[in-house]
């Protein structure tokens, strides 16, 4: 069945079976490849996007179930219009291979939207679904704290 979805403020008409996961709609149909495929079973978080502001694993959301506007990493900020979170991420040189980082950033963005001053324990809880094989966790943690500080100061 065909369906209309909104991604990063743009409307798309998608003609694919209902059960195709949003991940593969974004990557193969819409052509937004910033959202990554890592496991297909919600075990790694690489495919994390926001639907209606909530972080979801796009590999587990069927096209038919996309219930609100979708925001992907490309919608969070582009190279010349970085969001605070992305700017801090770059400044602290968080990424290594970079493959999981879209998912990490989208997950962290939700955390900061819900909790302006997350503790280490809050970060552990929110981020443990996002796997990184390069081991960037120490800098992810530092980046979330630093972004929280700047956003709190309105920087």
């Amino acid at each position, binding site marked *: 069945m065909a369906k209309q979805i909104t991604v990063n403020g743009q409307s798309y008409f998608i003609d694919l079976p209902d059960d195709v996961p949003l991940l593969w709609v974004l990557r193969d149909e819409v052509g937004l490849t*910033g959202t990554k495929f890592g496991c297909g079973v919600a075990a790694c978080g690489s495919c994390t996007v926001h639907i209606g502001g909530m972080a979801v694993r796009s590999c587990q959301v069927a096209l038919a179930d996309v219930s609100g506007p979708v925001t992907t990493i490309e919608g969070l900020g582009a190279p010349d219009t970085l969001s605070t979170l992305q700017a801090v991420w770059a400044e602290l040189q968080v990424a290594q291979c*970079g493959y999981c980082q879209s998912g990490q950033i989208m997950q962290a963005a939700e955390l900061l939207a819900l909790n302006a001053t997350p503790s280490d324990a809050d970060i552990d809880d929110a981020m443990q679904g*996002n796997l990184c*094989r390069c081991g*960037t966790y120490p800098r992810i943690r530092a980046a979330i704290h630093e972004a929280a500080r700047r956003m709190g100061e309105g920087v």
Partner: protein
Amino acid sequence: MASIGKIARRTFLVGTAAIAGGVVFGVYKLNQDPPNPLKPGEGEWPLNAFVVITTDGVTVICPKSEFGQGVHSTWAALVAEELDVDWQQIRVVHSPAALAYYNAGLFGMALPGLDYRRGPVAEGIAAFMGKAAKLLDLDVTGGSSSIRDGYTRLRIAGATARETLKLALSRETGTPVSQMTTEGGHVVLGDGTRVSYATIAPLAADVDPPRVGLRDPSTWRYLGRDMPRLDMVAKVTGTAEFGIDVRLEGMKYATVHMSPRRGKMVGFDKSKAQSMPGVERIIDLGDGFAVVASNTWLAFKAAEAVEPEWGPAPYPADTASLWAKVAEGFDAEPHVVARDEGNADRTQDGTEVIAEYRAPYLAHTTMEPMNATALFKDGKLTVWAGVQTMAITRDNCAAALGIAAEDVTVIVPFLGGGFGRRATPDYVVQAARIAKEMAGTPIKLTWTREEDVARDHFRPAAMARMRGVVRDGKAVLYDAHVASASITLDAMEASGGGAPMKDKELVGGMHDQPYAIPNFRVAAYRTFTGVPTASWRSVGASYGGFFFDTFIDEMAHAAGADPLAFRLDLIRPEHEPSAKLLETVAEMSGWGSALPQGTAQGVAFTYSFGTPVAQVIQVSQRGSGIGIDKVWIACDPGVALDPRNIEAQMFGGCLYGLSAAVMGEITFADGRAEQSNFWDYDALRMHNAPAFEVRILQNAIGLSGVGEPGTPPAAPALGNALFALTGTRARELPLIKTFDLIL
């Protein structure tokens, strides 16, 4: 205007022709630079194989795959340091496969003798040996060799380009070179006039590159500093192009299911799958099948609906039989005795320690599953794939399709992790075969994570039989016998080659340890299980580091000595820079001071890939199990070109080792790996990863890599800390089998 990326593809021919036309190289070839394979487009002026001046800056050509180690940025900094260009003016492009991009660093390490004892003379020999890589067209990104390869070469490339530009301008204007300086991509004349490189570059084509000297490190502005990585902004905005992100006009999406038993496919029923939505083709690949569809997920679904019948595995079908096969390795004479000092057979007075260790098969599980995009058109193949070797990828694809190597173009985007997995380009060959069946249509092949685990080429299982004697608080005998696969010889023999060489990497992280022990033997026994294996971050040292250092810890305990002091006493006479590292981690971690109840520390040290690394790990008993609190790391790469990047490699390498040490294990049943995805082959995550503190010293001679050396000490440091905490010695990995670690 043609981009240099396109140019790199087009000019691929040049490099391969050079090989085809030069089967027998004279010795003189060793000292001759291969031809520059870059053919410029409008607005691009290549001054050598690594430096291209463009209208808006400089493009640095990097033959090293970027998979997170930051090599593109340090490669660029090496050029920029001599060329005098601003960091914002630099772009890095992956090179084509060509002879000019041989890896001299990798071969330079394959010297006889012990690496840590090398001095300036041995460094010279290593540099000469490295040139032999040119004859073999060896372009592997691995072995922590990239910067060892590029350190001098790239600075020379930058300096030569700079002086060539000055000469060209001098010829044009009559101003002597001595009255010119360079700055920010400009040549500056005595009167202050600034002439941009882009203005001069068109005049430089026929200037003979002069011989140049290199700047003194005390004047460096880019090297030795924390440079912002050139790929960072792309990687935080989802705009970095990984192999899996390649999109071509009219592209179709494919997946494969290959035999999980690594044997043949006896037959398959595709009737159900054929009529599923989006399915275009189902192709018999002999040892598996491919589904081509209009969307990757539709291909995944259809592949699940195919009913294949898999033939038997060409190796023992379960874990127990595989271990028996590994142990059989000890029945033969050693493949190589990699170190033999004193007399390990003579009976020694003292306390004897005997132990047997095991390390399991491991998967790589890069975050980006294996994938490749291929287009076969007019008898020529182009592949876009994250690989760690362009030359082998090209040659394997050519052989599989029955076409000439010069008809294959390999383009390398970013790699979502490598860890050694992407040095085996089986997935690219599959994409090429599918593309040939669908000639004219670009095909993107994506493996499911399940395929990625099932069809990995695993870190080989290894077993060690250790015997040691301590007397008066010191080690007097260290006798190690290790059975495992030779990854290199297995690969050479599988491709029909082979060489009468001995593979000391089988005991990587063991024979080359700077310990002054009077009777010291390390013997390697080659195993032949038939399980496909590959390098896994730090190769032999990934298990050798665990075997070697854990046994040192056992000997320290038997000697009644402090584990860190015991190591320090043995290391100091052999390698002072390594001794300093132990003193440094002792200071950083407060080693020996009182710790809270239920908390303990362990230390480990491994010298690998030329870089010694010491780590102290602190663990504590918590309500939910044992947690890893913190890791202190001290390393010495000789010269620290980008400290912040080295720090990332150190804690990243350690975490990769810790994940495997805690929970990594591939087991077999019915001829298949029993693990399939992150739910049963997991890694450390935010909540159970430790905090880190890294210190970088620069006392070692020469310069060495940092991608792998952080990994080997991780497992023994953790095991030794757990011993200190619990009194239980784990001689088998993963440690979750012995300890209640927090998962």
